């Protein structure tokens, strides 16, 4: 059993010193916020006084103030700093504290450490190196986390869209193990060029998905056949409640000009339109119809995850 894990749980720009942000990480409810100096904090979204969520509370110089009776909790330690109406000579017991999480902010993401072990320095977003304009977003998709990861191998075309590109369901080989990820290539073609995906000799495009064996960091790359990267996306995924999955992503279009790309692709690029879409609404019928194939290699992970126990 792993000791602990970093999870990217929110986009940097979504966390402010004005309004606390509720998020769910591996089914656990958390609240994120910043102090006036901009430092980010994460507490369990549960007041230790009477268990109400802290996220509808207000941010004060002392920390996050619970909406119910106004106890105020320090962001870094979770310690209760103030209980309203106590006399000046009364002290709040030190054990009055909300559960605090270690927070690391990097690459445009807020990460929290979940687990008992000492945190390691490598963050899920470490391999994401944006260049140029970024496109970011968040969504909760109507799928269990393990199913989302499996689908990212078996049918990423059900979860992602690239304007001007058709992702085929032809897998280029077997998933390769790369450290903590399984990596798989799918063939892709430009829309409206050539005679269609069924008759193409060699796929001019490759969609490469890296699906985590632990944690929730998904990397997606759209490449030319010569492995020139066109688009890179980092999708931070984690289990939300009731078999849904929280997603936070950032991605960008690489600077290379691709002469073989269709005019529409060049025009969208010139207009600064997003080069990809992470679907917030998945089509149940398409997901259900998807045949199990490369995700077979992921069963070592999913065997442990309860949501996946339903029969195929």
């Amino acid at each position: 059993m792993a000791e602990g894990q970093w999870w990217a749980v929110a986009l940097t720009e979504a966390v402010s010193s004005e309004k606390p942000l509720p998020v769910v990480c591996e089914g656990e409810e958390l609240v994120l916020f910043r102090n006036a100096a901009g430092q980010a904090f994460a507490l369990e979204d549960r007041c230790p006084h009477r268990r109400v969520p802290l996220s509808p509370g207000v941010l004060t110089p002392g920390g996050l103030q619970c909406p119910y009776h106004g106890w105020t909790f320090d962001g870094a330690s979770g310690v209760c700093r103030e209980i309203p109406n106590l006399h000046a000579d009364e002290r709040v017991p030190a054990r009055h504290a909300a559960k605090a999480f270690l927070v690391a902010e990097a690459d445009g993401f807020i990460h929290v450490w979940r687990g008992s072990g000492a945190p390691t320095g490598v963050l899920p977003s470490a391999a994401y190196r944006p260049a140029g304009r970024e496109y970011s977003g968040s969504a909760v998709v109507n799928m269990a986390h393990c199913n989302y990861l499996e689908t990212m191998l078996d049918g990423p075309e059900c979860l992602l869209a690239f304007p001007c590109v058709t992702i085929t369901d032809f897998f280029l080989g077997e998933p390769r193990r790369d450290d903590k990820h399984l990596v798989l290539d799918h063939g892709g073609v430009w829309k409206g060029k050539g005679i269609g995906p069924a008759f193409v000799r060699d796929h001019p495009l490759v969609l490469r998905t890296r699906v985590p064996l632990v944690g929730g960091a998904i990397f997606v790359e759209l490449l030319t056949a010569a492995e020139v990267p066109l688009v890179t996306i980092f999708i931070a995924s984690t289990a939300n409640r009731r078999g849904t999955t929280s997603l936070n992503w950032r991605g960008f279009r690489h600077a290379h000009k691709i002469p073989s790309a269709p005019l529409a692709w060049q025009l969208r690029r010139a207009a600064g339109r997003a080069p990809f879409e992470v679907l917030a609404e998945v089509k149940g019928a398409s997901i259900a119809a998807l045949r199990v194939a490369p995700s077979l290699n992921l069963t070592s992970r999913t065997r442990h995850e309860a949501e996946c126990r339903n029969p195929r």
Partner: protein
Amino acid sequence: MNDIAIAKAGAADGYENSRLADWVPIHFDLRDTWFPVAFSADIGTQAVRRIVHAQAYYLWRDRGRIRAAEFRPDQLEELRRSATAFTGGTGHYPVTERYGYVWAWYGNPDNADPALIPSIPFLPVDGSNIPRYTQRTVRFDAASPLSVENLIDLTHADFLHAKAIGDGRSESDIVEVQSTSETVTRTRIVTRKSVAPVMRWIGGVRAKYQDLRAVLHVHLRNNLAISYPSFSPGYAIPNVQPFVPVGRHRSRVDQTNYTVAAPAPFRWLMPRISYVIQPQDNAVLRPQNERYFDADRRRDLSSRFDAPGNRYRLVMRRLAERQRRGDFSYAADGDPSVDISAVLGMDG
């Protein structure tokens, strides 16, 4: 390797275990008590369905006489075979009317004695002349004991409801709690508090400060809260809030805010304040509910302001424990019909 800033977290994970069992409000299903299931004025010849815990109560009038049954009147004959022990197999619950309410018995019908109906000294016993504007129905989105706890809890009022009923600033604020085997009584005496906005703007109280003596008297079995807040300068706003458990996760409250002695228009407007306050309470109660489903390793932390609420938790557990052992009787200190005008401070 990333250049990361790590915020330091404290070890706030393990709370010490209390000697007491945890508070699991959905487990309470206290028997042998009268529930005010409806305003008398709401029941006519058409049957309406009310619910107490998991039992259905169909209420209607038959040639003026009040009826309460497990089934719709037109299905009564057909379904009587499946009548439960709550009606002794007859399908009919013991039912009576008092204080403008229909009271239906929940428990063993052999023990149903109208003498066990709680005394509400400020309401006319026969329910006559209770104006309709004093009667409101509100709903709470949590287990009834959680909602009662919310009512007992005073510090949240100063915080969650500050805009409507004023902040807690005062010269002195004394809270006392007393209990019997069947009730919890919370008394609050406040001197020189700033006048609540509603009292100032529509209540006609022009003074800057007022004194308050507020007594809340809660019957444990039926979640009946009788409250007598008296302001000076100002007036008393006696009220009744019966938290009737509609299943384990919701309650219905047919409340009577008996403002007849207050000046107009306050008299008419004050009862409507529940429509402002109750959504504020529901905003915290709704998410709170599911967090009390199971005994939690981490006990709730308290301040000295929680003494009345913690007493309520304790006496509820004691009563439930007694009922688990099969004892549904009322002890000598717990006669619900005893006159509480002095407890409420009605003469003072």
